């Protein structure tokens, strides 16, 4: 065996280990949804069943939690997209020192631990008599999700050709029309992507949400509570469904995108 082949062998081995490290937890978690065992585990395998899916389907509390998360995510997107886009637009027009200062301020929520954001939001709004609940969850989550939107929109804006804006103005367009007809269509991919990211960030958030939830129970909190009161593989079934929906969504998007590309050949 040449050293070269040994190296290649080691490399393949490393690659397999790496992929296993990434996906084994997901595979075990998914497989546990089909085990008849009352606890989410694959060892021992007590028999294959789909019962946990129907258990999940019948779990009204779980559906309520999912619904709560969906409402929160909806409002988070509604607030974070326009505010994040506006922040990105302002930041790209600022210069040098003012820009780096504003940038640091805007990005700081990303560097703040989620727990701190949750607690401080709760304390602040207590002062004016507003307690935990859906509104406060939205406020707390939006604080840091805005940063993601802003960063993604800024990245796209850096590739925007400013003379297009001048061309539009020169043709008599108002500022509003420039925004609506030229800038917004250009930002569309970034807005879609950051909207998707905002939904994911909102639904999966636990540490911030926990402090501001009041009497509401979003999905992450619901699952965490279950760990204490007795977790059943119904939760695994739910996770498997969420993964399936995500993967199908991503594949469908990619197929649609490729179709659009091939329908419009570039010269």
């Amino acid at each position, binding site marked *: 065996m040449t050293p070269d082949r040994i190296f290649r062998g080691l490399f393949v081995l490393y690659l397999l280990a790496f992929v296993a490290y990434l996906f084994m937890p997901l595979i075990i978690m998914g497989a546990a949804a089909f085990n008849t065992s009352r606890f989410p585990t694959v060892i021992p395998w007590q028999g294959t069943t789909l019962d946990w899916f129907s258990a999940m389907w019948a779990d009204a509390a779980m559906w309520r939690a999912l619904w709560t998360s969906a409402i929160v995510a909806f409002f988070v997107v509604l607030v974070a997209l326009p505010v994040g886009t506006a922040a990105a637009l302002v930041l790209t027009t600022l210069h040098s020192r003012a820009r780096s200062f504003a940038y640091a301020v805007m990005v700081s929520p990303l560097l703040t631990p989620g727990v701190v954001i949750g607690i401080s939001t709760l304390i602040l709004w207590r002062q004016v008599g507003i307690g935990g609940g859906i509104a406060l969850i939205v406020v707390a989550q939006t604080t840091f999700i805005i940063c993601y939107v802003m960063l993604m929109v800024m990245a796209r804006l850096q590739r925007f*050709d400013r*003379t*297009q804006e*001048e*061309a*539009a*103005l*020169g*043709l*008599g*367009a*108002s500022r509003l*029309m420039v925004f609506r*007809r*030229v800038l917004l*269509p*250009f930002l569309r991919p970034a807005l879609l992507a950051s909207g998707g990211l905002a939904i994911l960030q909102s639904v999966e958030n636990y540490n911030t949400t926990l402090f501001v939830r009041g009497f509401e129970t979003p999905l992450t909190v619901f699952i965490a509570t279950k760990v204490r009161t007795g977790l059943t593989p119904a939760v695994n079934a739910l996770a498997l469904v969420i993964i399936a929906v995500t993967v199908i969504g991503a594949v469908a998007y990619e197929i649609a995108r490729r179709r659009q590309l091939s329908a*419009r*050949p*570039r*010269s």
Partner: protein
Amino acid sequence: MSHSVELDGIGMRFGRTQAVSGVSFTVQPGEFFSILGPSGCGKTTILRMIAGFIQPTEGRVLIGDRDMAGLGPNQRPTAMIFQSLALFPLMPVWENIAFGLEARGMGRAERRKRADDLLHLIALEGYGDRMPGELSGGQRQRVAIARALAVEPGVLLLDEPLSALDLKLRQHMRAELRSLQKRTGVTFIYITHDQSEALAMSDRVAVMSAGVLQQTATPRQLYDNPATPFVARFVGETNAIAGRVSAVGDGMARVDTALGPLHGRAQGAVAIGQAATLYVRPEALMPGVGANTLRARVGRMDFEGAFALIHGQFADGAALTAAVPSTRLADAPAPGTDASFSFAPEHAVVLADA
């Protein structure tokens, strides 16, 4: 409806840099007017002041005799064609062309009709539903022109719009722009650093250098009667021979140079004793002895078809270029020999050194 454009002593200062100072000229309605100068001479700044993207720090811009102070680009009767064209990549061609009409609140059906009319004007019928990315460079160019013409501007401002095209297409587009201007009668103000472009297309040309206007004249006048040393050197090829004025009279001047006394037309203020330079075009130099004779060592010869360029060197080391018509190449001296070249005094210009 085309407009006149008058610049009244305009200047532009960016921080500590004076980009443009004290420029005045008047462009007649329906004129094809070029601003020519090397990059960084302030010509684009002037165009942007006319368009209203920037406000001059000194002087006034009048379009159709109206002072434009304080008016933004969307309030002026101008349209601009950018060097990058700046077509909207996410809109089909017809929406690009009709963008200015949309801004004026015209209904969709009528916009489409007007866009189709303009597509006909630029010979791109049936391209309305394509995207700009699917067009060739020359087609995109024409769409940019149609988009600007759609708003029926009084003045069309063009910022080196042909510089991205290859030579062949550029020459074709020159002719096309010129005929389009004549057909529409719109005032064109055209920015370029390419002197042959400016000379070939324009009714009049303003030559700029370092933010200062050098001369405004017809292409023929610029070439034959340059007003400043910069114009003499920048527009066309020339042989510059430095010396001192020893006689002036009857519109002519004699300059004593290292190559002997030479005669030429006096241009502007030329006084005896002044340091001056005589400029003579390569095509004015003929092999042989005449009124003004120069001797030079003949070097390389570049055959260019209609002309052959003979490169030589004077005794003091300065370079000489003579353009000899191909039909008279038989008279041309052989490389490596010392030869005489002569020119008629009325084909040379004497300008006082700046």
